[in-house]
């Protein structure tokens, strides 16, 4: 059995009075790619955002239960959120590079966290861009605004920005839903290339994508985790009726 990087235990989440996550138990193995699937509105993004505590920004969100990162509960009030977020990076559904130059985007996290000296900066930026397969395309335009890139390039830039700070976990929230098939293929290739280096969790509503990239898959429905297992098992031999209906395309 692999080492467990993230362990979600009995997690409940409310927005005001509305319960959005119900008693979630989920163990995410280190270095692997785990997919979260389920119909729209079932709580996938909400679960993902709990893992780097983005709900802190919402005054009416309440969480109960535990999320252990290497055995430490990140929901504990003494957790240093800034430090946590540096260890757990995130790539969002809509590509969201900052309105700055390409190089500044990648350097942002490094500067904020003072992770390297000025002289190392350029090399780190280049390395991150290479790792996200963007270097060849932007090497001559590092000072150009990131907003002039295409959607697919922007999303790869966001990945470069996330990996530049060398997190341990990267969370992807439907990273390809706004992209064309060619850009999607590039991103998938990129995610698979990062397997082993990072623990990756990817939310997707595209079941082919989950099958192509993920080692493990979790199926959620109406705020509950219905089933979790190796990707092949979830898609070929689902244990639950609901999972079976969903992966065979009978609803959703």
């Amino acid at each position, binding site marked *: 059995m692999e080492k467990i990087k993230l362990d979600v235990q009995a997690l409940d989440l409310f927005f005001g009075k509305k319960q959005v996550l119900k008693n979630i138990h989920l163990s995410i193995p280190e270095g692997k790619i785990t997919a979260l699937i389920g119909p729209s509105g079932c709580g996938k993004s909400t679960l993902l955002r709990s893992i*780097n505590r*983005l709900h802190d*920004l919402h*005054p009416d969100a309440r969480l109960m239960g535990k999320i252990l990162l290497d055995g430490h509960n990140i929901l504990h009030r003494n957790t240093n959120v*800034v*430090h946590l*977020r*540096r260890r757990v*990076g*995130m790539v*969002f559904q*809509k590509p*969201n*590079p*900052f*309105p*700055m130059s390409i190089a500044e985007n990648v350097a*942002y*996290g490094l500067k*904020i*966290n003072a992770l390297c000296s000025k002289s190392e900066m350029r090399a780190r930026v280049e390395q991150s861009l290479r790792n996200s397969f963007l270097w060849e395309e932007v090497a001559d335009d590092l000072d150009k*605004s990131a*907003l002039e890139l295409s959607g697919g390039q922007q999303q790869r830039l*966001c990945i470069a*920005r*996330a990996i530049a*700070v060398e997190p341990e976990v990267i969370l992807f929230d439907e990273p390809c839903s706004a992209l064309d098939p060619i850009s999607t293929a590039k991103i998938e290739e990129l995610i698979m290339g990062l397997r082993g280096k990072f623990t990756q969790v990817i939310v997707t509503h595209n079941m082919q994508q989950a099958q192509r990239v993920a080692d493990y898959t979790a199926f959620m429905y109406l705020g509950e985790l219905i089933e979790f297992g190796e990707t092949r098992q979830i898609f070929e031999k689902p244990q639950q009726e609901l999972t079976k209906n969903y992966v065979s395309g009978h609803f959703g």
Partner: protein
Amino acid sequence: MKSRFFWDTFFNKTLSAAALVSVLTLAGIFLLLLYNGLQAFSTIDIAEFLSAAPWNPAAYDAPVFGIGAMLFSTLIVTFGSMLIAVPLGIGTAAFLSEMASPRLRNLLKPAIEMLAAIPSVVIGFLGIVLVAPGLAQVFDLPNGLNALNGSILLAVMALPTLISVSEDAIHAVPDYYKEASYALGANRWETLLRVTLPACKSGVLAAVMLGLGRALGETMTVLMATGNATAMPHSIFDPVRTITATVAIEMGEVPFRTPHFYSLFACALVLFLITLGVNIAAERLAARLRKKGQ
């Protein structure tokens, strides 16, 4: 069908007419200023007009028409007010938008906007009875009616617009920028300074320009609160007389169509050109920021 077409044409024509009226009014004002202002120079030497010789059109012997000291005074009072209002205004806007609870924000923002409705005479009055004596005490001055007093009062007047408009701009920055920044380990302060504010700098610049415009053109407050000495000021603690105050004080007493009368139009023209220049510069800068940014 026919009636819809009629209404469409009707609105189209009405709106064009409204736009035309505004443009013609503005052009008319400008031409009036230009026509009357330029006539001043048929009797007044333009070099004298632009010099620092103290303005004294009703002098005991020969009238002196030097706008230099007033121009400088106008600039230091305005610049000073921006030095106070810009950090304070943007800080308040950022607090309201990013830190305050929605309830506090919904309470404070309308309250601040209502400050804009305070008539300038009231601000000037407060300057005379409250701020000026306070300044005199704090800085151990014989009298607090000086450039600094004007700057403070103008800052107070510029703040409501500045806060309201820049709060709108900051608030309009999409959450996904902020979330991306937080997700990289930035705290609220870093996110505000490095992501949120840069992302809305053209909006914030517009807010600053509106405030600057208000400060440059304000008459009543500076007339009441700055001491109105025509000498060239040497520090912010000297009394000053701005261009607006001069026009306001003298326009009432001047017989029409005299050199003094035209010279006041020339003053107004100078003020107009400054405001125009500032606005054009701001427009250019904002356009450039927009191109680089969002």
